[in-house]
């Protein structure tokens, strides 16, 4: 308060006296966490989907429980439970496997696990919807042509799946990006956490929260442009048909 524009700029400068470089590092952590989590979440989404349609009853039930739990718990609660409980789990396992060795679950890893679990619970629904959109007919045609199941997935389903899954996964990516802000609560130095530290000494909450809010909006807008581009790419083969010379 009472600071002029120049002083604000000084606060954001890159160097010993400004928070610019710390914020940049925080942005790096936010992006690194999102980028590291997303592929894991996508793969998990497929696994959960397959578990949900498994022939084995117990697996189906477990998968249902998984999606119900992670879709109903607040992300912050999932994160806290995982952060503390996963360490207990790791200790228990490592006590059996590597006697004497103690592994520690970093906030980064804990954040990755928690966010993957949450995102994949929603992601399994994206996968299901996309598979439905591809249609049973495609699988049946492949079966009647003798293609093996892995081949069918690789050559027939997957190439068509992306087109239908991109909007859903794009949406989840944005949710993930924003949810990474929660790891500040377990003291991982992401954007929000860095902002909080900066405010501790500068006493300028409005400036810093507005700034990182704008950064998030920028990231989200960029993501949605990227998503549009990917959608266009993925449907290129298909739209060509619709406007083609047939």
């Amino acid at each position: 308060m009472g600071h002029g524009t120049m002083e604000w700029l000084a606060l954001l400068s890159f160097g010993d006296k400004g928070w610019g470089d710390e914020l940049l590092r925080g942005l790096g952590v936010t992006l690194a966490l999102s980028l590291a989590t997303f592929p894991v979440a996508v793969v998990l989404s497929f696994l959960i989907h397959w578990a949900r349609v498994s022939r084995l009853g117990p697996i189906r039930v477990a998968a249902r429980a998984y999606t119900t739990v992670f879709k109903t718990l607040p992300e912050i609660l999932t994160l806290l439970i995982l952060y503390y409980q996963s360490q207990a789990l790791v200790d228990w396992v490592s006590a059996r496997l590597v006697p004497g060795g103690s592994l520690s679950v970093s906030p980064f890893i804990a954040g990755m696990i928690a966010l993957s679990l949450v995102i994949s619970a929603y992601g399994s629904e994206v996968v299901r919807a996309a598979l439905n959109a591809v249609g049973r007919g495609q699988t049946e045609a492949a079966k009647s042509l003798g293609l093996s199941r892995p081949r069918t997935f690789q050559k027939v389903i997957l190439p068509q799946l992306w087109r239908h899954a991109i909007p859903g996964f794009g949406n989840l990516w944005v949710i993930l990006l924003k949810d990474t802000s929660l790891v500040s609560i377990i003291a991982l130095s992401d954007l929000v956490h860095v902002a909080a530290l900066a405010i501790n000494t500068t006493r300028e909450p409005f400036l810093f929260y507005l700034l990182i809010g704008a950064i998030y909006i920028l990231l989200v807008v960029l993501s949605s442009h990227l998503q549009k581009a990917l959608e266009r790419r993925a449907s290129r083969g298909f739209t060509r048909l619709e406007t083609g010379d047939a």
Partner: protein
Amino acid sequence: MDGVTDTGPAVVFERVNRHFGAYHALRDIDLTVARGEKIVVCGPSGSGKSTLIRCINHLVAPQSGRLAVCGIAARDGRDAVRRIRDRVGMCFQHFNLYPHLSVLDNCTLSPVHTYRVPRAKARATALEYLARVGMEDQAGKYPAQLSGGQQQRAAIARSLCMKPQIMLFDEPTSALDPESVGEVLGVMADLSQAGMTMIVVTHEMGFAREVADRIVFMDAGRIVEIAPPDDFFDNPQHERSRRFLERVAPQRATAQAQERT
């Protein structure tokens, strides 16, 4: 495609049953289809026609009874289903071409990846069959660029590329506009003349009369009547077949509609 030439009947159903949950979709089906025979299956909606022919290539697994295709029963060892599917081609109501592949790639996908046919050879074969269905000049197009009739002919060619001994058709013309129906029925008639064993679910009664050796009439999961087409159309034995024919034979249907007004 594994070189065995079989000589027995093409398909044998013996007291085959299939349930979907509580619903009894196939009831004690008995049916023997000889090599080279052409069967037309008809019946009201939901009577089990699709289920019947899907059992043949095990898209639907029968639950009791015996079903042998080219002498192979699904129980005969681990890859029996695969061996059955080698011998059976299928065409669907909605064509089910792979939309992300060109017509040619649709035709070569399975030969190249499942049967390890060299790509060049697979293409040559595919072009040959595409020519046979009058589609050689469309080989590079994607399915969505084709009319319904062209898509269905491409789907037939795709099945033929597997050199099947039996062809199944599940209402191959019912999703087509009237102009395209003729071109697909024409290709199927050609195929039947070439001696292919064919089992066709269709409501095209003109085609049935012309091409079928026998008509199988189903209702509520049962085979109600099996008869040569002339007998079936002119002198149906069963009350249900008669009612069905009344409904699908348009002359009478029209007469009815006009009476109403």
